[in-house]
């Protein structure tokens, strides 16, 4: 169990985002401590992805603030988020299908030679190293990622987040497109990263994964936060009730 006494790693305070009059996120506050996994739950369209995209820099908040280590953080674009060591694994994986694994892993942060040219060999070497750790069966280093299986693509996306020493990791349904074995691999990875002291926001639909992987769960409905609970103190029925009915569990 994570130590939740100091300043939270991330605090998103009173965040609101609207699109053309529709309040996608309505005054939501969530926080995340080092070494814990906070599940973000809710129906499709509840506002989870929108909320989290404010943290990853893909969207701008209309109001509210983000604090990292208790300090106010300005995150206006994905580059800003990376400066705060926030890495995101998107549901769509956000891979350029026509490029190989190394180019995707280092996209936007290419390693260069002293002459300023992209150092493909060095990047491939680094990719081979991290893949040996994450997915030892990975072999297709030279193929464009569209030639890879769902699990292999997922491991490229995960490698990209892990390689750059993320402190805050956002995972948007990381196991949605995976088989049982690969899902198990992701679960083990999450445990491992947690032990290293990372904070992880996990957007997840599968209630079993939530019960298994998350320390706390924040439930959203129609853009509003229903509540945040310690997963160890509630049943899956309670959480489902929050998701479906939008009601806090009693007791």
């Amino acid at each position, binding site marked *: 169990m994570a130590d939740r006494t100091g300043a939270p790693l991330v605090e998103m305070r009173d965040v609101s985002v609207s699109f053309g009059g529709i309040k996608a996120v309505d005054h939501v506050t969530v926080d995340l401590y080092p070494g814990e996994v906070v599940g973000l739950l809710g129906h499709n369209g509840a506002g989870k992805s929108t909320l989290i995209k404010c943290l990853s820099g893909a969207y701008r908040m209309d109001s509210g603030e983000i604090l990292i280590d208790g300090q106010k953080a300005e995150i206006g*674009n994905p580059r800003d988020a990376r400066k705060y060591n926030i890495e995101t694994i998107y549901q769509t994986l*956000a891979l*350029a*299908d*026509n490029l190989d694994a190394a180019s995707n892993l280092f*996209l*936007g942060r290419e390693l*260069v030679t002293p002459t300023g040219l992209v150092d493909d060999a060095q990047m491939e070497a680094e990719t081979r190293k991290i893949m040996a750790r994450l997915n030892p069966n990975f072999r*297709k280093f*030279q193929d464009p990622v569209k030639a890879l299986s769902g699990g292999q693509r997922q491991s490229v996306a995960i490698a990209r987040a892990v390689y750059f020493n993320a402190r805050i990791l956002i995972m948007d349904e990381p196991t949605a497109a995976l088989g049982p074995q690969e899902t198990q691999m992701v679960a083990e990875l999450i445990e491992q990263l947690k032990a290293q002291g990372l904070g992880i926001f996990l957007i997840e639909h599968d209630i079993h994964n939530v019960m298994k992987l998350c320390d706390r769960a924040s439930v959203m409905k129609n853009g509003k936060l229903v509540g945040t609970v310690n997963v160890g103190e509630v049943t899956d029925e309670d959480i489902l009730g929050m998701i479906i009915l939008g009601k806090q569990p009693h007791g």
Partner: protein
Amino acid sequence: MAEAKTSGASAGRRNIFQTLEFDTRLLGMVGAFILVCIVFNVLTDGRFLTPRNIFNLTIQTVSVAIMATGMVFVIVTRNIDLSVGALLATCSAMMAITQTQLLPGLGLDYGNPVIAPLAIIVGLLTGALIGAFQGWIVGYLTVPAFIVSLGGLLVWRNVAWYLTSGQTIGPLDDTFQTLGGIGGTLGVTGSWIFGVLATLVAWAAIANARKARISHEFPVKPLWAEGVLMALSAVAILGFVAILNAYEVPSRVLRRAFEARGETMPEGFTAGYGIPYSVLLLIAVAVVMTVVARRTRLGRYIFATGGNPEAAELSGINTRLLTVKVFAVMGVLCALAGMVASARLSFHSNDIGTLDELRVIAAAVIGGTALAGGIGTIYGAILGALIMQSLQSGMAMVGVDAPFQNIVVGVVLVLAVLIDILYRKRTGDA
């Protein structure tokens, strides 16, 4: 870039081409080009593959080929530029006015050595600014590139007309004219030196790539395959030089040159043309653009944006600014192409570059650039331009009627893309 990696080592080697790590699509294009050449050579009783005709083919291709390399970037980022022919005309008009009216008006006499460089700088700036402006409208104001460049086609074609009042402007500066083709060549000795240097550079590149892979303990090609690659590159480069050197300057031209220097030509004196400066320019553009595409961040971002714009954005790439850069590069290349085209004519004419946008897009597409974005190569586009030009001049030599020439080119364009689509479906590389 993408293709080069597709043919990588991982898939398991099946045949000799895979061992050599050749891009099969490149092989297909080279095959098509050779076929076109042989067919026309037979139809013209051997007149097609003479040094003279090959020389002419290369200088006729340069202008469109230069622009086609830029069009690859434009199309790879899922845009299109229909204004390149018109932009070429505006740049050409600016350069022509600068060297024949503006600079002489400032007291620089005809023949002054700084006229050509100044005119070229004006042209390049014009191209870069107009290109960047169009890119800004596409990237930041989010007007589709098709519309922006369609408007640009009308605007710049007629800006050129307005600037020159529709008049032909010439003759252009003598130094400037050497960039057109036959008026400025390296000569036999210079061409051989260039050929040998180019071969050495190619060998060094092959050796370095191997060394880098070995130092990282990646799988490498067998040594004999590297040897074959080196031999092939030497044959291609030196063979090209030999052909251009074999095109001899007509003796009356030589005699006139001697007389101009107050000498008489020795009996039996001959000289070959060698590589035209315009072709050197194309080679330089091809090398620079290839390095940009494969070895720079800019190139990586261009291909990433073409493959998945959203992913590129989420990776922190400023795709709007990237669009501006891509169109600015396209504008600069239009200016270079305008320089070559007007220098070759020795004057600026009001219809210069008309319909070039279609030739340029066709060259890029025949060269394997996918309109869906993310895929394309510089050498493919140049080869595409060469195939188009070969078809056109070949048919003219055979005496095919003008309407049929265009009909054939149109059909070939569609067929080339169809074959590409079928090829990609079969290899699962769609």
